[in-house]
């Protein structure tokens, strides 16, 4: 097979090249840096929250003093006196709101889009995404979205302070344009997600290398595909929910105002119809990625490929049927609560299949403890813990006690930091040599893993304890029984932050090095036989000069166990 000469796509150089590029690899890298930089911003916001909560001035006796009208308490970072930012806890609420919004819309979702963009076309043997210009547009939409959200800190009234959930009537009542800017930011970020999702669905459906059937597709491509379907279905619904807030705020439509015949719980249902699947948007691609990592560093092939595909799809399907477990306390009929309880517990089944299959993938292998593998192993440990908390929270009667306490915060941070962020770091260390041609420093990587693992355990483990003791979420003051737990949590936060900074340092250091990574730097392709390790690091423009050979490895079948090079 010989191909016509590839067109030259480099029209500009330098910054203009990056701005005008429609190359999926460059867009993937831009997604990556965008996500990482906003990760540092979101982490900084978390730091402000932790600083307030570690301050002894935030404790209960000041609540009491304040309740008595003796407002002499400084109340920590965001208190009434000596305040760093303003004169009220509104600033604290802005921090929690923006921490969540930044981390969800500008860090975790774009970060998986980064790997999806870069790796998936290569994995399926395509030269680019189906709609390269739409791909670039989807990325550049994130920039005004992020600017709108973060600029709201500087407008009159400050940023949105009603939580990332923006429940009405609080979100409808707040002053200033901050909440409106938040809504518009969510609209733009959502549009970006939808365009990206369409692009992935079309690319994966139509542009697989000849001979690669659906069930020969690598699991990361499968995960990105299923993830894109979730995004395509769910994200417009989020748009609808926040649009109602926008209308109620500016045009007095009263859609969510019970005094005007609206219904505040309507918002919650619609919001969580997006935001529960969003939880899987933030983790499914990572599930796909570590399947490859486990296989690669155990020198084995993926165990139970078909079951993994089915499990991923069932998680996505069930993910659409459990949204109301976020809102049991709004008062629902018991039959409805029972359904949401059982369906939520049911998600544990496919998740369990995945965890056991990963363990079976490693069983009998020769495990090499590289940085990506360490992160992936740590992920299993932490994610199982996080998922366990989820099972407890799914039980309606128990949820009445735990809802809106720090137990919930601990639970979802275990799955999002111990889960998604660990997966992202694993993927970063695994694919960075391919994406840039530069290896990341292994010593830095392993050190960051140790900090990250212990940091997550300390930070979010203590949150489970304080939550089970009854500490409410989203409070800037609390009673003194919780102070040592909160200070421990803040110490854990520092460890996690150090880990993130080490990774950041390793990324910067790698960019200063020569691009000398081998095509198959992890020496995994003998057994894995995946397109991305068969081409150069970084891959050339358009990836493949020739139509790549049909996959040499059928993940469903034995028969290529005697390793053969992919090129034969």
């Amino acid at each position, binding site marked *: 097979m010989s191909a016509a000469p590839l067109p030259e796509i480099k029209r500009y150089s330098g910054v203009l090249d990056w701005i005008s590029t429609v190359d999926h690899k460059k867009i993937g890298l831009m997604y990556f840096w965008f996500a990482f930089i906003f990760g540092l911003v979101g982490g900084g916001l978390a730091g402000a929250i932790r600083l307030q909560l570690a301050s002894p001035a935030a404790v209960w*006796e000041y*609540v*009491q*003093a*304040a*309740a*008595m009208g003796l407002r*002499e308490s400084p109340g920590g970072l965001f208190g009434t006196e000596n305040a760093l930012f303003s004169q009220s806890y*509104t600033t604290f609420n802005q921090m929690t709101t923006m921490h969540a919004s930044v981390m969800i819309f500008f860090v975790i979702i774009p970060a998986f889009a980064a790997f999806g963009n870069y790796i998936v076309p290569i994995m399926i043997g395509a030269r680019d995404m189906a709609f390269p210009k739409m791909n670039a547009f989807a990325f550049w939409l994130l920039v005004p979205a992020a600017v709108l959200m973060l600029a709201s800190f500087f407008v009159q009234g400050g940023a949105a*302070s009603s939580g990332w959930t923006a429940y009405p*009537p*609080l979100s409808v009542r707040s002053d200033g344009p901050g909440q409106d800017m938040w809504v518009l930011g969510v609209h733009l970020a959502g549009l970006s997600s939808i365009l990206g999702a369409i692009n992935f669905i079309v690319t994966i459906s139509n542009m697989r290398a000849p001979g690669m059937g659906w069930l020969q597709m690598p699991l990361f491509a499968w995960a990105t595909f299923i993830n894109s379907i979730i995004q395509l279905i769910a994200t417009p619904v989020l748009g609808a929910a926040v649009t109602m807030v926008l209308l109620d705020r500016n045009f007095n439509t009263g859609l969510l105002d*019970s*005094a005007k015949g609206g219904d505040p719980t309507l918002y919650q249902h619609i919001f969580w119809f997006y935001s529960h699947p969003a939880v899987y948007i933030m983790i499914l691609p990572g599930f796909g990625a570590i399947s490859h990592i486990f296989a690669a560093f*155990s*020198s*084995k092939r993926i165990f*139970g*490929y078909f079951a993994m595909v089915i499990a991923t799809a069932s998680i996505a399907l069930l993910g659409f049927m459990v949204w109301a477990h976020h809102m049991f*306390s*709004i008062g629902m*009929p*018991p039959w409805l609560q*029972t359904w949401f*309880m059982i369906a939520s*517990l049911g998600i*544990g089944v496919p998740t*369990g*299949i995945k965890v*056991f*299959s990963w*363990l079976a993938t490693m*069983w*009998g*292998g*020769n495990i*090499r403890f590289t940085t990506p593998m360490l992160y992936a*192993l740590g992920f*299993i*440990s932490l994610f*199982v813990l996080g998922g*366990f908390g989820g099972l*407890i929270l799914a*039980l*309606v*009667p*128990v949820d*009445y*006690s735990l809802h809106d*306490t720090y137990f919930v915060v601990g639970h979802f941070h275990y799955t999002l930091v111990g889960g998604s962020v660990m997966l992202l770091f694993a993927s970063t260390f695994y694919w960075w040599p391919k994406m840039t041609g530069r290896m990341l420093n292994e010593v830095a990587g392993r050190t960051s893993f140790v900090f990250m693992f212990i940091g997550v355990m300390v930070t979010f483990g203590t949150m489970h304890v304080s939550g*089970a003791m*009854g500490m*409410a*979420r*989203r409070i800037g003051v*609390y*009673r003194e029984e919780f102070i040592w737990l909160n200070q421990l949590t803040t110490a854990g936060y520092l460890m996690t932050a150090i880990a993130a900074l080490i990774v950041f340092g390793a990324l910067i250091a790698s960019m200063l090095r020569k691009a000398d990574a081998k095509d198959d730097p992890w020496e995994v392709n003998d*057994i894995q036989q995946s397109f991305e390790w068969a081409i150069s690091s970084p891959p050339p423009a358009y990836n493949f000069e020739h139509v790549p050979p049909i996959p040499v490895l059928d993940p469903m079948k*034995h028969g290529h*166990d005697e390793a053969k090079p992919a090129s034969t």
Partner: protein
Amino acid sequence: MLLIRSLIVVLALSILGLAAAEPALADAERVDALVELFDPNTQIPIENTFQNPASELAEEVQSGAWFSFLLFLPFLILPQVLLLVVIFKFRDRKDGRKPATFIHNNKLEIFWTALPVVVVIIVAIPMTQLVYKMDLPAANADQDGLTVVVIGKQFQWKYEYPQYPGLKVGYADGRQQPVVLQKDRMVTLQFTSEDVNHAWSVPAFGVKKDCFPAPRFNYAWFTPTRTGFFDGQCYELCGEDHGRMVLSAVVAEEADFKAWVNIQSNSLDARDVVELLRKTDDSQLGEDVAALSQAVTDYFADDRSAGRTLALQYWAGYSYNLDVGDQEKILHTSRENERKASAEVEATRIRALATEQRPVLDNLIKTTLSRLGAKPAPAVEPTTSPTVASGQQEG
């Protein structure tokens, strides 16, 4: 039935009337005990959600939580153990060992799919029963149950007792006043809000419900099983001072609960008298005593029942206690030594004033009552619940 009941009421009234011939002054210890019981300044160590259930429902929730926890526990431990096994057993020893080549195992896969399904079913059955039990206030309501309307408002709570006309408590004297419940008497809470969403919860009761703006109502029920002071707070982000939107509940024995109903029902005019008493100063005691005496006479003009006397005594004790509490709080929280010192002096002064002035009031009540003579208390307002009627007479 109604005839017999009203006969009993009439009989009880006449007995009470005879008893009132002797001025019914509650002894100081009883008044102090009540002041302490309903003290909004009370601070208790936090009780963990799953440690000290204070209602039947909370006990069931707790045992259900432990049951599920133990059934789920193997799925927490097993992967961690297998992970360690994998890490230690299958690490690359560089001994040329060939990695295994299996890629699936149907029996194993069916097993680890089916087993969790079975466990989910085992857990879901008792939990579903509990969901239905927790949900139905109407079916579980007994006729003598207490109903409390909980109204959230940025950043305080109001409680209304529709069975006791006019009985409302809330944020007063710069404090969130506790909601008072009766031990072993089922309570149905009706939640609503005046502005944004709130969530009312006392962890020890195992109850948490959102309060949506009226006209939406939410319901929850439970039966407190333990007397004491319980803490809670708002659990749904409701604005700037959400963290300070605290709440508390007192569970009292039946007699104390009835006394409290009485005390609250008579709070308005009793507190007027107490305010006058508090203005009384040593220097002009003679002049003020006349005014005070007139106020006490007016207070007892229509109703000289023992309950009304207790209310007056209570609110006097409450008033001094409140001021001492303020000073103690400054003592506890202030970082300025000057303020601390002055607070200490002030607290001592108020305590001395209380020991001096409360007997003055008691004497005044006694003389007023004997001067006005034994006059039976007027018949209490008719209320919906018979329990309530007898409660107000006995108090």
